[in-house]
């Protein structure tokens, strides 16, 4: 027994130690054109855009599924993708798309106009529990189809293999933007039917990258689509590693085993002040505005003077410097600075505690008041910093920290006095304003503050029908000026998104819609160091 034991144990131990220490992580030592990205979200669970289209899923599915048109968020331009060209009728109601003949699905079959119609119908089909069910309500016959009253969407007409006509019920200047998003994903019918519920686990699309493998909660591997109609990507593949822990991400980045990571405030401060690494930072003000959203139907925030007072009371720049590690820009309006609708002439609220005191006195609160503010783990410290400016005026925001989803749910129900969160993401400034400030959108659709001004509603409605871009922008600016004046928000700051890449990564872009939405066909790697 003794001898046998000895013979067994030492080789086993030696093998254990050698295998543990001898080889570096195979994933990081590759010299090929495979980009390893840290996805700073958990595993999306499904890669079917219909079932999930938040950032965690979209940052992957946008490379697998192609769309008729694509939006270039840096140049702020729509360009054809599966569609080689498109035209819009003068009344803005009819869109005609000519499809590329060399656009293929990953299974090798050419994409036809019938596939696009099928995909639109799949996205809004009754019983699909699609998160994008309302995406095509503006298309003729879409509502009847979605509600199960029609067998097809009459407003989407297939004219041969390569021409598609879509008719709208009213002009919608943002229609192409919607088609460029997750809702516009084109699916191969035979694969959807073959895979059934498994389609989200083994997606087949027509984008520049092909789904290769997925280790749940670990990584998704995509490889370049050799026959992509826009040309084969320079990268051979992309690995998305799911890492929700910032410390773990950073350890992997420092060990050189991941190529790109998105940074939070603490890490941003570290990399921004490091002269060796700061050149590899990619920074952009994202399309998000951080704000305290006041419930304007309840006292004390039903009084515009109180809301204005709070906006004058806080030194935004000081908080950004001292608390947010400079990873933000002071906000002057509700639309973020990277929005196409950003108004540079809007000056916002200057820091003026005296004026704040005076406004509070006029509103009947000379000694201030206390209010309840819903926060989440990431926003509590914002509110604590804001309170240091409010307290000298006798105003105190009593912090109620909840899980973000719960806080938002209460806000949508109207069960709150104030709630602090970051909001945005829409490429179109009108969509941003309409969902948050139009009185038709109270509650769930996005207007949590219950703000209502018939004149603002009219301006937004008119902008929605206006095809002349200059006139449309003027209407947006006019509406925003009134909103900022009546300020249902404490307009705090615009988030600065930051990403750090290893020196061998090239071609990353400051994408304002979300820095995670990189166009990976433009990215390439020099030899790793």
């Amino acid at each position, binding site marked *: 027994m003794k001898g046998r034991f000895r013979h067994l144990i030492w080789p086993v131990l030696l093998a254990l130690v050698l295998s543990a220490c001898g080889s570096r992580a195979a994933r990081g030592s590759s010299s090929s054109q495979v980009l390893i990205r840290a996805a700073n979200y958990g595993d999306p669970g499904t890669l079917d855009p219909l079932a999930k289209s938040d950032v965690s899923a979209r940052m992957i599915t946008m490379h697998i599924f192609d769309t008729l048109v694509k939006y270039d968020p840096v140049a702020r331009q729509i360009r054809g993708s599966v569609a080689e060209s498109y035209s819009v009728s003068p009344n803005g109601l009819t869109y005609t798309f000519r499809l590329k003949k060399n656009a293929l699905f990953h299974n090798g079959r050419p994409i036809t106009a019938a596939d696009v119609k099928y995909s639109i119908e799949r996205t809004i089909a009754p019983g699909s529990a*699609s998160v994008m069910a309302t995406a095509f309500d503006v298309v003729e016959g879409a509502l009847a189809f979605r509600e199960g009253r029609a067998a097809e969407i009459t407003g989407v007409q297939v004219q041969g293999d390569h021409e598609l006509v879509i008719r709208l019920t009213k002009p919608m200047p943002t229609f192409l933007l919607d088609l460029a998003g997750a809702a516009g994903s084109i699916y191969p019918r035979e694969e959807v039917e073959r895979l059934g*519920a498994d389609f989200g686990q083994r997606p087949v699309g027509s984008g520049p990258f092909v789904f290769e493998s997925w280790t749940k909660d670990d990584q998704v591997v995509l490889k370049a689509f050799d026959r992509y109609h826009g040309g084969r990507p320079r990268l051979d593949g992309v690995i998305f590693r799911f890492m929700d822990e910032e*410390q773990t991400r950073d*350890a992997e980045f420092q060990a050189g085993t991941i190529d790109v990571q998105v940074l939070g405030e603490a890490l941003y401060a570290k990399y921004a002040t490091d002269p060796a690494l700061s050149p590899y930072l990619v920074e952009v003000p994202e399309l998000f505005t951080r704000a305290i959203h006041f419930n304007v139907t309840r006292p004390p925030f039903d009084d515009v003077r109180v809301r204005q007072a709070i906006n004058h009371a806080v030194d935004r720049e000081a908080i950004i410097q001292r608390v947010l590690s400079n990873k933000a820009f002071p906000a002057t309006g509700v639309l973020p600075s990277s929005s196409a609708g950003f108004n540079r002439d809007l000056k916002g609220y200057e820091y003026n505690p005296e004026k704040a005191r005076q406004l509070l006195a006029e509103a009947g609160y000379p000694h201030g008041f206390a209010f309840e503010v819903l926060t989440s783990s990431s926003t509590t410290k914002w509110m604590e910093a804001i309170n240091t400016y409010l307290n000298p005026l006798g105003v105190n925001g009593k912090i109620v920290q909840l899980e973000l*989803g719960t806080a938002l*749910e209460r806000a*949508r129900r109207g069960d709150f006095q104030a709630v602090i969160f970051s909001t*945005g993401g829409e490429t179109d400034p009108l969509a941003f304003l309409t969902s948050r400030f139009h009185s038709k959108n109270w509650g769930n659709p996005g207007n949590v503050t219950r703000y209502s001004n018939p004149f603002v509603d009219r301006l937004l409605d008119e902008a929605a029908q206006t095809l002349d871009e200059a006139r449309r922008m003027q209407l947006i600016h006019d509406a925003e000026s009134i909103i900022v004046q009546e300020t249902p928000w404490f307009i705090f700051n615009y988030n600065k998104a930051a990403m750090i890449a290893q020196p061998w990564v090239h071609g990353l872009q400051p994408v304002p819609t979300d820095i995670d939405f990189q166009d990976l066909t433009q990215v390439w790697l020099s030899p790793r160091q």
Partner: protein
Amino acid sequence: MVIFLLRRSLQLVPVMLGITLVTFILMNVVGGDPVMQLLDQRQAGMDEAAIQSIRREWGLDQPLPVQYLRFVGRALRGDLGRSFASREPVASAVLARFPATFQLGLAAMALAVAVGVALGTLAAVHRRSWFDLLTMVAALVGVSLPVFWLGLMLMYLLAVKWRLLPASGYGGGQLQYLVMPAVTLAAGITAVIARITRSAMLEVIRADYVVTARAKGLPEWQVTVKHALRNALIPVITVIGVEMGSVLSGAVITETIFNWPGMGRLLVDSINRRDLPMVQGLVIFIALLFALVNLVVDVSYALADPRVRYD
């Protein structure tokens, strides 16, 4: 023995019902609408009717007691439902994560038992020596170290500074990916096992039969291992059973730090997403696992101590 096993299996029924009911109530008390979790802020334009249709599709429009009873009814037929977040069947999602957690738990437990029993025995044999003192101080530190901190420290030293091991991930089950998570998870359990082994050994080491064994002229290692340790094992086995719970709960943290694709990480993600079917499925599976381990522990008493009988 058979009757014992049957009785224990029957006891599981009310336990399972209780566990699922508590989980169901807790998930609903905590709040957070699972449908809202599915929707991106960019879908701000979703109208109430569309949201209601998603809710209907998932049966979330029913009163809570009906939702719970439907769940129990399906579970009894072996159907744990589909995940809200990924739409995949819960049972297959949980089973897909089980091997990774099993691998991690087994490695951590094996490490903890091997090191803990060895250290505890040596400390008892060399009572009041510097080795004993050092081992017990190390055990105290091991029990007190937060798993999170230990994991990150190991990561920075072994992966970032010395580049000996990959920092995180599964690596398709390669051994070098397992080392750090297993050591992190094992640390606290090793300490507990070492302390229990030491005190159990101290009790038996002066027993008459040990003195007799020594008087017979048996070598010291035989006296320690065959006569003393075997008799000291009962409390150690009990602790191992209890610590299996620590392995499962510790795995939640360890798997999160090290991106280990196991059940613990899925549980955290599912709670964050308000994915009730997935949370329920995981809780049932983990509870069953825990009950099974305890059953194995009870049965193994008989192996360690021939006087123990279950009939």
